């Protein structure tokens, strides 16, 4: 089973120490929420796990093999990523952007095959983007661009997804659709690590919540155990009454 295992990740930017010995695991078939304050280093940690940013020390292994030793295209078939913000200098259509997700599966300049077109369509359906898939990305709203970016990650058919704030800019309906999608993905054996600030919305649907605080993971447990009132106070500086009971067991969206 594919697993992404980070051990002892340390990383500084200038004199600021961002990650000070992070241990974190992501296995296929589980949904993990990475939470913490703004600037806690969540996005940096995701990039380290993706391999696009190198840690000063520590190891990241994918399937028991050093992440940096993976050939790029093979790695891209295992881990997909959605950055926090899109930025498109050119007016690609949504469908063209999603089709880029098939690059790791195609030879150098091979056009998409039937199987790729099906994967692209499935990804567009999964995020509810079929209606605006053929519009230029410049004409799409922030939330629509977000869904296109998520669809691109889905189109790779990777077993592990790293999503940086996938719910930002999404309206309630599509945020709910996204958390449902997380559940479906888990059902298909996909592992998802996501960051989000809306704990109420996302945490109940996660298998684990990892809290990043002061450069370390200070809790990594099932949501109800990880998000205690005491921890919410230390990590977010917010007094939450009965934080553990915040998510009723029968909570359903």
């Amino acid at each position, binding site marked *: 089973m594919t697993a992404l295992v980070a051990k002892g990740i340390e990383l500084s930017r200038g004199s600021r120490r961002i990650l000070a010995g992070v241990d974190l695991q992501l296995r296929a078939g589980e949904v993990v929420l990475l939470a913490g304050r703004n600037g806690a280093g969540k996005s940096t940690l995701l990039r380290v796990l993706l391999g696009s940013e190198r840690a000063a020390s520590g190891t990241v292994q994918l399937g028991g093999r050093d992440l940096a030793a993976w050939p790029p295209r093979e*790695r891209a078939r295992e881990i997909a990523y959605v950055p926090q913000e899109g930025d498109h200098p*050119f*007016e690609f259509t949504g469908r063209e952007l999603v089709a*880029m997700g098939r*690059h790791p599966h195609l030879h150098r*300049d091979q056009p998409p095959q039937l199987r790729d077109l099906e994967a692209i369509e499935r990804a567009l359906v999964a995020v509810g983007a079929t209606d605006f898939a053929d519009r230029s990305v410049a004409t799409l709203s922030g939330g629509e661009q977000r869904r296109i970016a998520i669809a691109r990650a889905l189109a790779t058919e990777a077993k592990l997804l790293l999503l940086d704030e996938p719910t930002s800019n999404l309206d309630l309906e599509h945020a709910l659709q996204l958390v449902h999608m997380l559940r479906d993905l888990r059902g298909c054996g996909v592992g998802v690590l996501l960051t989000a600030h809306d704990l109420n919305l996302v945490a109940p649907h996660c298998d684990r919540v990892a809290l990043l605080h002061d450069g370390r993971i200070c809790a990594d447990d099932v949501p109800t155990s990880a998000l205690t009132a005491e921890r919410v106070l230390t990590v977010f500086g917010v007094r939450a009454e009965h934080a553990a009971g915040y998510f009723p067991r029968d909570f359903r969206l």
Partner: protein
Amino acid sequence: MQRHRLPLALVGLAALAIVYLGVARGAPGLLELPSWCLGDLHPRLAYILEQIRAPRLLVAAAGGASLALAGAIMQATFRNPLASPDLVGTAAGAALGGALAIVWKLDGALLAVPAASLLGAMAVTALVFVLAGAHGRFSATGLLLAGVALNTLVGALTSFAVTFTFDNYTASSRVLFWLMGGLDSSKWENVAITGGGLLLFGGLALRRRRELDLLTLRDDSAFSLGVDGPRARRWLLLLACGLTATTVANTGGIAFVGLVVPHLTRLLVGPSHRALLPLSAVFGAMLLVLADLICRLVPPDTNLRLGVVTTMLGAPYFLYLLARHRRGEVL
């Protein structure tokens, strides 16, 4: 229609080529082309077609295609629709290299000017790349700023090099005419260099069309899809340098083709490089053939230079872009 775009554009280019060969201030004219094809044209007229107009046509077409491809590649690698061999300094570097080769009287050797141009183009592009990317991540703004700085510096160095030729009128006029851009002295060996550069570097670039698409994304996104952004950029910029240098070495300074053509083509067919690269090449060829046709048709004593014509076409395009920008549209 989408399927037929490239064949249609090629038909357009072929038609333009026939007009180019047959329309001139002197004989042979269009009506003599059929007899040329049949081989019973007067040898003197056939010589004009075969040794003067045909090589000039092919250098214009290959050069225009190369510059347009170089522009399309640079716009994707710099993630900026305004990047082009002119703005980044690649063309200026190629011009400096070529000018130095002429000033130092190396231009007797067949490949001296193209080789010097390639070195100049690569040196300036590499310097811009390092200057902009020295501190961590690649920044498009940084690249363009470095390009502007280097462009100015290299332009000054080129002028400085030219002043060394002032004691020799023939040499200095040769350098200056070359710098202004022109195809008058195009021979079959120039066709071989420009065309060879187009086939080699353009062919390699065509195989990386989807990679170019991916490079327009943020580096992290491209990385997650299996593309090592910085490495792919270096390789593609090398190809753009090759395309620019093999053209500039034969045509001298020809501005704006690399900026305007990919930009207009993108408005027509969208940003995906699968269609954008081949069509930009054909449109670039058409633009330069047309511009050179204009040069040939004006009275000879005005001595209108090709680089001047393309600049006159390019400068208004910037104003058009400015208008678009003011309306809040994507460039």
